[in-house]
């Protein structure tokens, strides 16, 4: 089945991110000089789009989703192809990213700096302090674990 999906617009992304950081819609409306109903509508459209993006990323990577939150732009599932727990993140800054639960060879990987930038950015968006004394793949797992705990998906 083909599904048409789009990223949230820049403004929708901003509103979605502010809502995720628990800023009240009326305050967002004041900050962005838009109406209160507009904030609600933008938030709703953004969540619809993010939901489709997460599902699409899961389908592409053959990941069966266990938990998904379009409000927080985060999903977790299982990839039978790689026999690995997989995470899907959405961020207005970094778009959709897929992560596999395994120990990466960060020291020799050319993507290392890009991964570090992404993980640092995601931690910042979630208002979490980034642990600096671990490898990037380890930091990623710590971040996702904390997120899942916040969302109540794990104990």
């Amino acid at each position: 089945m083909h599904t048409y999906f789009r990223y949230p617009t820049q403004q929708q992304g901003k509103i979605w991110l502010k809502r995720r950081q628990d800023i009240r819609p009326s305050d967002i409306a004041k900050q962005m000089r838009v109406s209160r109903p507009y904030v609600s509508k933008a938030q709703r459209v953004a969540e619809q789009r993010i939901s489709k993006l997460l599902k699409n990323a899961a389908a592409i990577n053959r990941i069966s989703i266990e938990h998904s939150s379009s409000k927080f732009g985060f999903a977790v599932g299982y990839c039978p192809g790689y026999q690995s727990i997989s995470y899907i993140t959405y961020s207005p800054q970094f778009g959709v990213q897929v992560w596999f639960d395994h120990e990466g060879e960060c020291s020799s990987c050319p993507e290392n700096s890009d991964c570090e930038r992404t993980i640092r950015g995601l931690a910042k968006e979630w208002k979490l302090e980034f642990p600096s004394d671990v490898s990037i793949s380890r930091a990623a797992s710590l971040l996702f674990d904390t997120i899942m705990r916040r969302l109540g998906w794990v104990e």
Partner: protein
Amino acid sequence: MGRIKKEENNRTTDACRVPPGLSHRSWFAATVNKLKKPDGLPDTSNIDLGLFVTFWVILLFFIPLWNSPYSFGASLQVSQGEEVDWNNGFEIVTMPYSGLNETLLLNSTPYDGSSIWDCGSYFVDAKTRSDERGYTISISGLINNLGFFSCSTTTSISIHDITELFFSVILDGLEGSCNVTLSAAFSDISLENSWSELFHRSITSELYRGKTLNLTLSTPVALLKTISPDWLSKVDMDIFIVGTPSATLIIKDTTIKAISDKPLFPVTIDATATTGESLYSSYITRYLSNPPVIFLNRTGEDGGPALSLRRANYTVFLPQGQYSAIAGWHNYDVLSPVIDAQEITFEVIPDEMIHLRLKMRAIRLNINSSAPIPFRSMLVRLGESDDLIYTPWRYVPWPDHLYVPPIQGDIWISVYFEDWYVQAWANISMNHTQRISFSSPLTINIFGLLLNLGQLLDIGLVILIVFLVIKRWLVKTAQLNRRALLSDNRFVPIILLMSSFLFPWILYSDWGEYLTLNFVALPVRVLTFQGNIAFAVVSFGEWIILGLLSVVLLWAPLIGLLFMLSTPESKSNSKKTGKLLLLPFLYSVFFLIAVLLSGYTLGLGAILAMVGLPIWLIQILYRREIGVPDIQLPLKKAERGS
């Protein structure tokens, strides 16, 4: 801010974007290097860098060839002709004329832009037309602030016999507005250079739509009489028109009026060959460095001023008196000022005008060319004499013949076009019975593009390199989906950049009616005449500096962008795309600034190269605004399954 607690992380180990089981390096080696190459196209992945190095090594190797004079091909043929009359002489014809104290030394009503006048545009596109209303001039330029149109003429005035002198021009403004300057410059008649100027006066006024402008300039004759070394003085009358950005006007009337104590009578001097044919039958005679000349002496006056006869029926107004003259070809030598001199005497008497017809020995040189294209300059060396230069220093049409002074000895002929020229030499003893033909079959005309053998070799080489680059690009991009390619943000800027190669970047007219279109990205220059292509020429010599810049700032970014199309557009490579588009943008902005400073006109090519970067940025911002994700170029259907 929350804290990630390491001790609470009991479930997961690590999380990585690369799938488990494969390191990045091994995954790349296992997949990308096993991709099947498209059929029929060889793997040329290792030739990218080598290609450029080879290109420039060969280019540099061939530069000497491009810069060398193309002397091969041209030839001089000498054949025996029929015996012709070789006796020089002169003939005086008189006609009735009522001399007055008020004389129109020049009266062009309506002004017809005839051979008396030399008109042309400089750094501006100008169209002219003559009709019963006058001489219509339309000046236009896209971005141009230094261009002008000018008409000038030269005449001789018997300054010692005149009490008042007026120059005037009448113009009508049809469209736009412009500034018109009328100027008169008096100079030493015996000298033909800019240092000979004695006195200069000008007047400027604005002309706009619906206005009739009558510019009149009076000159201090008393002052001129004291500073002029001869009783005859040369005067250059100029009309400068500067229109910003465009203007259309008509020159209706131009006059030079003299008031004198005693009546003046016209003496018209014409020069013909001994065969009777006018020496001005070839227009290029007017540009000859050693033109026909007459040194004119008047009884009771010191000095014998030289009248250079640069047009047929040259008229000078003289008072009654006895005159003697020496006529021939001007030699600019104090000891022997005239080649093939002959002495002439005549008398100007009241109520008569004189027509003095000079028969001068001259050798007719026929000029043939397989490609009779406009040229800049022609140089003829006869025997031990100084070079005779026919040099308007602008493009002029190819003449079918020219006249040279009767000097015996070897003959050298060179014709200069752009940065290349043709020349031929013949060791002959010329005499009047010989017919000499100069042929220049140097060029091969391919769809209007003039090339010689060396250029053909070089172009073949360049085409080969371009072919290899295209082939490599096809290999890289063979798996791209056409629809995705069209929606790629980089596609339109690349097409615009490619198109910019095919259009001129700067346009200029360096005096005359020929407009030069310069294709900066290619070593091609096209000369147009009133909207039609006069000739196109591949000119490597002058292009080489511009060519190096163009390779770095145009060709390299274009090729880089083309190869980048083979990878999906992403945030990581968007910076590189921006940098590659920035180079041609800066290059075209440089041309825009140069155009504004120089007065050239900016061509479509530069504009196309300039808009690529802004369009790319607008596309990105627009797609971001409407929420379209970064384009990932999908593979073709056939590739999906594999």
